[in-house]
């Protein structure tokens, strides 16, 4: 699976960081909202459930999970 991010929509709510800290981090910015950073572009299968939850519960639909 691959992770696609639309940074223009990210407001740094950090739900992804709570769901899957192995895959997502949230970085403070000098100005404006903190932004998500993807740590693993192709996360292993065992993290699938966590990644799907991060995508599902992101309040701003920032994360899209693409199948290989």
């Amino acid at each position, binding site marked *: 699976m691959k992770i696609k991010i639309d940074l*223009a*929509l990210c*407001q*740094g*709510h950090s739900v992804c960081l*709570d769901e899957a800290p192995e895959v997502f981090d949230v970085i403070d910015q000098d100005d404006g909202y903190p932004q998500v950073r993807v740590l693993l572009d192709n996360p292993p299968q065992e993290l699938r459930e966590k990644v799907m939850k991060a995508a599902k519960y992101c*309040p*701003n*639909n920032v994360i899209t999970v693409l199948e290989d």
Partner: protein
Amino acid sequence: MSQNVVASLKLPPKVSGEKPSSGHMDEFGANFARFMMRCNAECGELAEFNMGGQQTVLMSGPEAQEAFFKTLDLKLSRAAAYQATVPVFGKGVIFDAPPDKMKVQLKIQVDALRYQNMKNYSTVISQEVEDWVASWGDEGELDFLDEFLRLTLHTATHCLLGKDFRDRMTEEFRELYHALEKGLQAIAFVDPYMQQPVFEARDKALVRLQALIGGIIAERRASSHIEYGDALETFMAGTYTDGSQLTENEITGLVIATMFAGHHTSSGTATWTLTELARQKEYSAEVSEELQALFKSGSEITLESLREIPKLEAFIEEVLRLHPPLVLLMRRVIEDIEYNGTLIEAGKTVAISIYGSHRNTDYFPDPEKFDPYRPKPDTLFAYIPFGGGPHKCAGNAFAMMQMKAIFAALLPRYEFELVDPDETYQDDLSAIVLKPTGPCRLRYTKRK
């Protein structure tokens, strides 16, 4: 944009029925949601009308709405469109702050909505609901428009300003808040500094509220070791890029801005949700069963237990489609923009109608029918109860959590029925935030 490009562009078509003195203001003021649906039906994707001297271009359909949401702030300004909020939130707050400071203030607002705070808020809300229903007894009748306004004022102040403040909440605070609310009526969007008694009352209320909340801030700064877990704590901890803290008046302004963003929108949605639950018997039976299974008597309402309640969520989403709390959104055009071969000139206002978008038959066939199972549109810009793009409502997750917390507590215990004839429960489209026309009487009966 170069002169050549500008010359080759069309101008937006104009809506009929403009009066020489007031433009379309009368028709707009009477029912702006219906007026905007007429604009769209007559002119299509772009429709220009005259709002008391301000030329306004309505953008309709998902593509135009996407352009509205995604065009940079520098070209389409929220701040210029929402200057009426300045005397309500105070000088230097959000739409009155320089762009770099405004960004930081909005970021600090989102900080207050992060996970740890949200956990506290869900506990606070379920406590407030418990206190509210404690005196209900086995059956009765209430005006829920009133009830939800009070409940959500309690939850908002409790989440924002903490338990101490909520417990000490005075009649004076309610009156001050109410005076600020009245300062944000439609005429404020024409000129918020007119000589008007409501605006004088608004200005006095703000000064007093700044003193009141300023007092709490000073109290807290003097006893810095206590943890509160509320939004005020987050606002007080926030800093600008140079490391300086927000002033007391800026913090107060953020508190007021957050109240305004969340209070009426939540109470209107809660009132409509309960009314539709009383009306849509078939769907509400399914929602109640789902909640009874999830929250057996005594099982606690927490952020985790509220996270996934599919039938209730689908029901609330359909309520937000038919009764979106904010009917329209606006921006001021700062720099000429081009959309689909049409020039929208600087100085005009652009608007989108969420109410109209949610009744677009290309995406929502038979739009007036309440159907929580209708298919989701394949675009993010047709169903937009919280707006979209970079400035989407930052409180959307909080709002859904609050709705779920309220109904997870209510529905397993009580059944609700309409008191008045079905057709008397209608959208009130005269105010900025949508709600049912009052009173909104429902009868409740304890489940066996």
